[in-house]
């Protein structure tokens, strides 16, 4: 059993419960034991960093400090917005002792900076690759997948130190190992606008449409994502895109769902039934 510290983040317990389910099922299938951080709080996401600098550091700092107290040296955070805030905070505190002191004083804890944060792709690279192919029970042969990274999974590179910010390949490597075919397309790191999904919906519908249309144009049958915000936008917001631009019908799958399917886990256990745009027809 590989033991991994786990910070689910708020969406995985709500609007992206399908992501939460599939992370857990996939972990079981890969022989990982996810040990959830106790009493974790929200990272504050965009709402904090756009409005209050100290809050934007303090909320993630409490999470990191809790992890340290609970004996974790590494935590998996499957949400790209959470990883971005957690890693950004780690860096800000490491680079400036004065800030670290102030934040520790605010959270009334003493975070020393020993916790490393992994996104879901890094966890798969570290604990499942390269021999994941040997665990595949149901090859995703012929399935054409557009891997979509969006913004926070790869930006900013000097903070995240992960993959290539303009032409990432890490998700493609995993998807290919599952037997699926990846499509080459130019919008995989374009932002879908999720941070403004409810508050500036009209613009977000346009951005989402561009991404869906382009993925389809390049032959994608499904889009793979590793961020709950991207998923909500591309899946649920697709209804609004349909209304403005005509029917898209492009299923959006979490990377963890694709891995889970390949491991032979039933679709219902992976939360596939929760999607607004069903993948049934392409998965056969």
């Amino acid at each position: 059993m590989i033991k991994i510290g786990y910070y689910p983040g708020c969406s995985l317990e709500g609007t992206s419960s399908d992501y939460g389910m599939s992370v857990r099922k996939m972990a079981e299938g890969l022989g990982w034991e996810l040990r959830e951080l106790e009493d974790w709080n929200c990272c504050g996401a965009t709402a904090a960093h756009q409005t209050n600098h100290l809050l934007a550091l303090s909320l993630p700092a409490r999470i990191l400090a809790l992890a340290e107290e609970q004996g974790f040296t590494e935590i998996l955070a499957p949400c790209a917005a959470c990883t971005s805030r957690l890693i950004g905070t780690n860096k800000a505190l490491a680079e400036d002792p004065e800030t670290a002191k102030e934040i520790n004083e605010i959270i009334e804890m003493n975070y020393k900076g020993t916790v490393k944060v992994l996104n879901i792709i890094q966890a798969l690279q570290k604990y499942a690759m390269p021999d994941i192919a040997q665990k595949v029970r149901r090859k995703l042969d012929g399935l054409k997948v557009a891997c979509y990274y969006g913004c926070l999974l790869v930006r900013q590179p000097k903070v995240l130190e992960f993959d290539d910010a303009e032409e990432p390949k890490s998700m493609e490597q995993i998807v290919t190992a599952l037997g699926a075919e990846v499509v080459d397309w130019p919008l995989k790191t374009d932002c879908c606008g999720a941070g403004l999904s409810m508050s500036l919906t009209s613009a977000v519908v346009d951005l989402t449409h561009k991404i869906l249309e382009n993925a389809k144009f390049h032959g994608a049958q499904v889009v793979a994502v590793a961020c709950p915000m991207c998923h909500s936008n591309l899946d649920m917001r697709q209804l609004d895109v349909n209304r403005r631009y005509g029917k898209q019908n492009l299923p959006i799958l979490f990377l963890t769902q694709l891995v889970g399917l390949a491991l032979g886990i039933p679709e219902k256990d992976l939360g596939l039934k929760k999607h607004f745009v069903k993948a049934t027809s392409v998965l056969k």
Partner: protein
Amino acid sequence: MSHGDNTSTVNSFKAEIEKRGKLRLADCYQCGKCSAGCPMAEYMDILPHQIVRLCQLGEDSVRKKVLGSNTIWHCVSCETCSTRCPKDFDIARLMDVLRHISLEDRATNPDADNIIAFHKAFKKSIEKTGRLHEFGLAVGYKLRSMDLFADVTKFPKMLTARKLRFLPHKINGVEKIKKIFEKCEARAKPHKRGGK
């Protein structure tokens, strides 16, 4: 030349930005790459590189123009600009700093009302329970923005798919979270600009 010391007086808008964001505005040479790659550029009244230029000019007369632009709120924080900047100037960070100052100055553009209402509802939800309760956020946001009917047709499906929790989960450390909010807000609020 050392960091802004002969260009910015302690009082200026420019000095405030540089200090709060740990930024050096002179780094930007106006190539426009940030605006070229910005997914939200077409929804902005002033382009990102123009915002940087105005900040470089730094005169207090540009303060109102910059803080009152919808750009700083229509920026979705995707960080494409900062990633691509050939001078490694952190434009996304600048946008955060400008948002913070615009809130303190109460100088925000009306186009940003809903965005700010969303952030307030989001933070209120975390402050109350320690975690984001999305159903509560949706209700809180609708009441603040009066955008009552947006997305309601999705709710039944979200509820049956268990993508929305009716009841929030309260963490044990919720009092600690409240304290964190209080401290952070108290430290951001006192607007002692006039005095200095």
